[in-house]
């Protein structure tokens, strides 16, 4: 499949680093000629926006602790009147939540590992080795970022069926092992490393693989961390292909399982659905909050400015 999900799901850029306070105050000291002093209304509007942006998450979290009758109550109570963990209990007892969680994790981990290995190898070749056709390869790989996921859906399914990989981990993993975004990221990053390192190693008689493994890769750690996190996230949230390939419950990933419950007979069982949503969303939010630094680095490395 072309792009892992939709291009906009890949946070190509992430929050830019904050201007250090010292510099910021210096910039403000321009005597008010440039930007005016912060208008208090800016705070009011931005805070209102923030409430709208974060509110749905809070409502989801609160909903996941409400018993069924409270979820149907009109008008709804602000805070759960009778908080319960039953919805979470149902995830583990009546549904095979652990299986979905393991599936999502296994698939995302394998896809991440594959992209780290294959994208950094191709990225190195495109950035530092000279060989005929490398421009064509780069343009071709980047060009596929534009191709809608449904374009490859049919042939990919025919292929995977004929390989006997429907409803298997390989079927879920293989189409995403080599993604275009990682190639772009790694090529940009490796291009910025000095050529002299490589020349010096060659003079010392190191082989190309040794140079890549012992010199380039250790220097790529920040880029690999960014690539790893973004790939894991994209895979974790990926939906269309797993929906097609995972055909029985043992192979459902979390989004597939949630979607099937959400449009099936549990359509109105919002307690369960909110608990399931929390289970998909909250780990990701925690990882994002903990590792913002790496998202921040994405911006410098993809060179988008």
């Amino acid at each position, binding site marked *: *499949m072309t792009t892992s999900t939709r291009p906009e799901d890949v946070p190509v850029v992430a*929050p830019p680093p904050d201007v250090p306070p010292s510099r910021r105050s210096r910039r403000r000291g321009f005597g008010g000629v440039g930007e*005016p002093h912060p208008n208090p209304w800016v705070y009011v509007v931005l805070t209102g926006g923030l409430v709208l942006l974060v509110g749905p998450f809070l409502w989801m979290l609160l909903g996941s602790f409400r018993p069924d009758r409270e979820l149907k109550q009109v008008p709804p109570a602000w805070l759960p009147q009778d908080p319960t963990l039953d919805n979470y209990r149902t995830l583990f007892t009546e549904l095979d939540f652990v299986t979905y969680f393991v599936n999502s994790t296994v698939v995302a981990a394998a896809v991440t590992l594959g992209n780290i*290995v294959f994208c950094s190898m191709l990225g190195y070749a495109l950035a530092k080795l000279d060989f005929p056709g490398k421009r064509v390869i780069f343009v071709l790989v980047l060009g596929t970022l534009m191709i809608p996921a449904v374009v490859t859906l049919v042939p*990919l399914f025919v292929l995977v069926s004929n390989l006997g990989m429907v409803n298997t981990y390989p079927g879920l993993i293989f189409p995403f092992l080599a993604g275009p975004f990682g190639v772009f990221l790694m090529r940009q990053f490796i291009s910025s490393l000095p050529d002299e390192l490589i020349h010096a190693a060659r003079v*010392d008689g190191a082989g190309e693989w040794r140079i890549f493994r012992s010199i380039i890769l250790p220097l790529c750690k920040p880029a690999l961390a960014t690539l790893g996190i973004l790939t894991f996230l994209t895979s974790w949230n990926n939906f269309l292909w797993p929906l097609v390939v995972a055909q029985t419950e043992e192979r459902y990933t979390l989004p597939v399982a949630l979607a099937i419950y959400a449009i099936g007979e549990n359509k109105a069982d919002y307690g369960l659905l909110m608990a399931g949503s929390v289970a998909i969303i909250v780990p990701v939010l925690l990882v994002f909050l903990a590792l913002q630094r790496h998202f921040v680095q994405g911006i410098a490395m993809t060179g988008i400015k």
Partner: protein
Amino acid sequence: MATVTAGGKPSATRRRPDRGRRREVAAGYLFAAPFLLLFLVFTIGPVLASFFMSFTDLKARDIRNPFAIELVGLDNYAQLLDDETFRKTVVNTAYFVGVGLPLTMGIALAVAVGLNSGITRFRTLFRTGYYLPVVTSIVAISVVWRFLLEPDSGIVNTLLGYVGIDGPSWLNTTATAMPSLIAMATWRNLGSLVVIFLAGLQLVPREMHEAASIDGAGAWGRFRHITLPMMRPTILFAGVVTMIGYLQFFEEPLIMTQGGPLDSTLSTAYYTYNQFGFGNYSYAAAMAYVLFLVVALATALLFKLLGSKD
């Protein structure tokens, strides 16, 4: 191992002996091979196969024997033109992108300018908060929004009720279903555009704003004549990325409305998926290619509208 860094000797100009050159070419192909192999099998191959399939009568039952099929020329494409549901999905997709794209970009630009207007307190908090929805699963978000938009017990209509508005049954009414999906898409994608725009705003030289202020230009004038033109490449990039995503919207209607009511939220990508599900493989492939063509044309159009005017 010596790690002699830059001695000031530009080694790039030094021609390496032929043996070294051949070794480098071989290494280049070897390093590229694993990615390219996977890429050919799982991306390039399927992209080409899909194009071929769109001129055949491939159905689900032919799956074990995909080459025992008939060529039917442009039949699938002709059938698309006659397919009223398909035409409806094109209108729906145009509606979603035509309203959603400018809305998301406009609000994101306003937020970015606000965040960049010299506020120092809570800047990180705002930026992080606006970015949160971007990292979340669309499926989960769609489920949550359906819960928010429940006609009676939903929080949206409850809040509207406080100000005396009797909110509709958002997702079950043809007039409000699509706007609801657009609102959710805007909510979810805002953050990534804010971040892109913030990065772009760093490139607008303050001196230009200062000079214009001295010449008496107001805030709006400076935004219109300095910020916007300087931001054009950033806006173009953000517009292209967002549009490519929006043109493929699928999860939102699948979870929230199942394409209803009366197909009013059935998108082209969703309809393609449905046709695939019905086993009409070649028909789905033709539809996917039409979508691909639209993505390519719309991207070209954006480049023409926003690209360099020099």
